[in-house]
């Protein structure tokens, strides 16, 4: 009798866990909850200003502009209440702006890195300056966003950029043996033009598959085992749900920009060689004079550390720092340890330079 009760309990518990598991996988968590205001838009790009939570007299006068990658949603910077980089920075007195590149359509297939870095970004920065009333500003670029902010910083070095923060920045493609993507996109195996002529833009699903294929067991099996193991832990469940919501929200990458990324950067490393020509002008990293913080995730498999380290020797900035932390490409900013490690370090570095 007792054994049948235990068996029934186990069965019911298993059914409940399965229900929770399915719910988390098939629903979207509420992410990007911090209140914000749209202050500028151009084509698909939108510039948001987060509602300050600190009185103006206690706020830093230099605004902070966040620039994320062009093939993912920027909501990772504001993942969920209580675990949001944006919320963290607002609470410490920053005037925070976010540039959301939006979702490129077929009509945007010709957009290039040039357009993002020298057409959209400067316009958004103008609005940041107008909205904040400050001519100086700080800019944080993450992943491909770091490429764009670096190009901008190299080509518009007199535009008021005081602090440049690069997070897991894929800038140096010289060590091809350490960069799996560089191996996969080698011109012997990968025909970028045939993909783009078929789709126009690089489909988000293909980018996602590529990123997941770097660590297939972790992404396709271990990740779900972790979810199953933690179904009774509400905090872990909430974190997993929010992250899964972000990860599964894929967006395509504009065809022109994708082609440049593969041909100019992955294959020819033109930015680091100071050979990248943007709008007929050479992007010279030696012209970057802004204070520079480069954050590297030691276990990053998407942008290995070797891609982000060498920028320090190329720039003219006097004030530069490399901060290396354990963690992966996304985990170092959105993982459970980020509020204790990465965020406070960014705040400490930036606060001393935002007066």
């Amino acid at each position, binding site marked *: 009798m007792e054994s049948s009760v*235990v068996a029934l*309990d*186990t069965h019911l*518990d*298993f059914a409940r866990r399965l229900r929770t598991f399915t719910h988390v996988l098939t629903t979207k*968590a*509420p992410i*990007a*909850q911090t*209140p*914000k*205001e*749209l*202050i*500028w838009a*151009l*084509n698909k790009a939108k510039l*948001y200003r987060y*509602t*300050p*939570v*600190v*009185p*103006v007299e206690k*706020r830093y006068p230099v605004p902070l502009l966040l620039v994320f990658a062009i093939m993912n949603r920027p909501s990772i910077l504001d993942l969920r*209440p209580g675990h949001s980089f944006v919320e963290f920075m607002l609470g410490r007195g920053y005037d925070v702006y976010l540039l959301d590149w939006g979702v490129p*359509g*077929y*009509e945007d297939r010709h957009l290039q890195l040039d357009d993002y870095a020298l057409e959209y970004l400067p*316009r958004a920065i*103008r609005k940041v300056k*107008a*909205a*904040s*009333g400050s001519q100086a500003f700080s800019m944080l670029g993450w992943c491909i966003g770091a490429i764009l902010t670096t190009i901008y910083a190299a080509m518009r070095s007199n535009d008021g950029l005081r602090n440049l923060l690069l997070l897991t920045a894929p800038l140096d493609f010289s060590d091809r043996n350490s960069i*799996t993507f560089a*191996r*996969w996109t080698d011109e*012997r*195996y*990968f*025909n970028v033009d*045939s*993909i783009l002529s*078929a789709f126009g833009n690089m489909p988000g699903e293909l980018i996602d598959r590529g990123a997941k*294929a*770097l*660590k*297939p*067991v*972790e992404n396709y*099996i*271990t990740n779900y*085992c972790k979810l*199953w*193991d933690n179904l*009774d832990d509400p905090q872990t469940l*909430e974190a997993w*749900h929010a992250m899964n919501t972000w990860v599964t929200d894929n967006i395509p990458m504009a065809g022109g920009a994708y082609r440049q990324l593969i041909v100019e950067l992955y294959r020819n490393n033109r930015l680091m060689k100071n050979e990248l020509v943007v709008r007929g002008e050479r992007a010279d990293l030696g012209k970057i004079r802004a204070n520079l913080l480069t954050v590297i995730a030691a276990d990053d*498999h998407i942008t290995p550390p070797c891609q982000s380290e060498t920028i320090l020797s190329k720039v003219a900035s006097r004030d530069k720092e490399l901060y290396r932390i354990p963690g992966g490409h996304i985990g170092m900013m959105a993982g459970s340890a980020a509020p204790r490690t990465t965020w406070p370090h960014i705040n400490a570095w930036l606060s001393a330079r935002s007066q």
Partner: protein
Amino acid sequence: MKETQEKTSKPADPLEPFRAMRDAYLDAMAKTVVEAVNTEGYAQATGALLDGYLTASGPWREAVEKSMLQALQQFSLPSRQEVAALAERFTNMEMRLDDMDAKLDVIHRLLHPDGTAANSEADERTEPHTSPTRTAGARATAPGNRRTAGRRFVRRGKGPTQR
């Protein structure tokens, strides 16, 4: 003490005995697979797979595009290319408006060298928000001028993961 009680009252998980074994197996497999995907052979294979798919689907895709184009023409509807061209023109117009907005900013600054005009958009900096569900501001909006749109994006959904 309380924690111990909670632990003991937790229902039995039939997978528990296998967990350590599973994790060890997955770790080993992960290392092997990562090494495998990081080889020239894998790059070559995925490249060939992708090429094969694109080559095989190419004629079908072209046929669909052609028949779609003909159907749209029959119904006097614009093609995808035409809609895309229209969207590009809209973007160009938006850029022109943005340029004009920038010039207006410069004029404002020249008219108000003390900085009052430049700071006009920064007026809200003086009021920190106290409620997470602040309602939409309603500033006047000039056509095409995004600066004064004053739209607020505040989600109020009370999902299961909200604090």
